[in-house]
């Protein structure tokens, strides 16, 4: 996977949601809100693809704790 330094900059600076290292190309500055929604959904889709490739052993509990 090719990553650019700029993608790494945005990855942590941007709070994480655009933080996939494979963020799709952004539309032009004056793009319509719908265009940005398309970009955001593409990011989620690519995140899902990357997560699908993570091998999680059966029985791995999600990293949050319920305290009664």
């Amino acid at each position: 996977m090719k990553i650019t330094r700029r993608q790494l900059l945005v990855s942590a600076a941007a709070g994480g949601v655009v933080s996939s290292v494979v963020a799709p190309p952004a539309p032009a500055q004056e793009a319509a809100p719908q265009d940005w929604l398309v970009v955001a959904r593409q990011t989620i889709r690519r995140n899902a693809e990357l997560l699908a490739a993570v091998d999680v052993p059966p029985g791995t509990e999600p990293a949050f704790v319920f305290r009664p």
Partner: protein
Amino acid sequence: MATLDPELYFATVAELHQKLIARQVSAVELARAFGARLQALGPTYNALALPLTARAVKQAKAVDGDLKRERWRGPLQGIPFGAKDLLSVKGLVTTWGARPYAEQVFQEDATVIQKLEKTGALLIGKLAMVELAGGGGYRLAGASLFGPGLNPWDRTRWSGGSSSGAASAVAAGLAPFALGSETSGSILTPAAFCNVTALRPTYGLVSRHGAMPLAWTLDKIGPMCRSAQDCGLVLAAIAGGDRNDPGSAGKSFYYTPEYARPLADLKMGYAATDFSDWAQPEARSAFAEALAVLGQMGLPPRETALPDFPFGAIIGAIIGVEGAASFEKLVSSGRVDQLADPRQAAGLRAGAEIPAMLYLKAMQARALVQEGFRRIFADYDVLVAPARLTIAPKISEPLDAESPKPAAKVGMTGLIQAGNLAGLPALCLPCGFAAGMPVALQLVGNPFSENTLLAIGREFQKRTDWHRRRPPL
């Protein structure tokens, strides 16, 4: 503007404390002078959200009375500070940096504000931030109710986000210290860009009660200061269990550098490619010198690697879902479109569409990331990497603009995301300059190893003076 010895604007908390104890300056003088300076210069950097000088001066009078009677409350007594505008202060506007919340008022102080004011620290102003701490994902430096955070070292460059005003204020000598917050990089990034020493505490060590919720399994509040020692002093005041914060670890923190393990007994890991291949070329000599200093301290870094996970995808899914839940009403009301960066609004809308299975998979992967770090910390006590690989970008550039630099090895370039996923503490240590702009290291340790990180930071800062450098004002 109230006058003060100009040197004091850049003094550490520990130095100001000595001046107060010796009656060389009063708390009222500090509150007036720093408050006036923040009001006068804060807007120069788009750093000021709400000035609170009059309130601070009133409290300072009581502090001076206590000091006169030798009623000591600790090293923060009479010290002015600023707070990121996502921390509530009773009866005052708390904007979260976002237009839809421009008139929001809470009737309770955030726990960290309560704790600091109990020690006699003086809140002189609320500080600007990226809107909603960037929770929807932003791509513009101007994604803030207050405009783009301008870097005191070069006002054409970004101060970083999302704790933009906190970093600018400390760097420019407008406040001796400030409180910032981090979900994924929001303390370390602006601290590195502005030459500020800052600490991201272990998740759960500092209460978030009264802070804007973004991603409740990731949000942390931490100090942004002039030295590692100051970070320790402030952390000791704000840490501790809080029943009002479900994520609280219920642990206290005592700043005890005198009991730190000898540095020569510690093992430090790093990835050489971060420094030699990934770091901006102009910054590499500064990073090389910093690594040499660590070596002289008995901490020569040894090659290691992070566990192999798509950290960006994992943390993106988690912040996406938790952020969408936090701001559900904002989205459903349509007021989300008032945000300055349309990418944020889109990110919050899209976050609500993330399937539960994806979120759970991300949280499972997160458990594996934690396990990976446990294996690393069986062999190493601390990891070191560039806090940021580049200097602060120009505010005129979109943050996701293209720049070529593929590298074969990823190294620890994902350490900010990975460290946040695992809830690990991190210390940002200024370590030099590139093209006239600051660069910094990040030290990352085991959960609740803040004293170890601070001991390394303190020794590093005894041997270097990067953290004392001042921007041209």
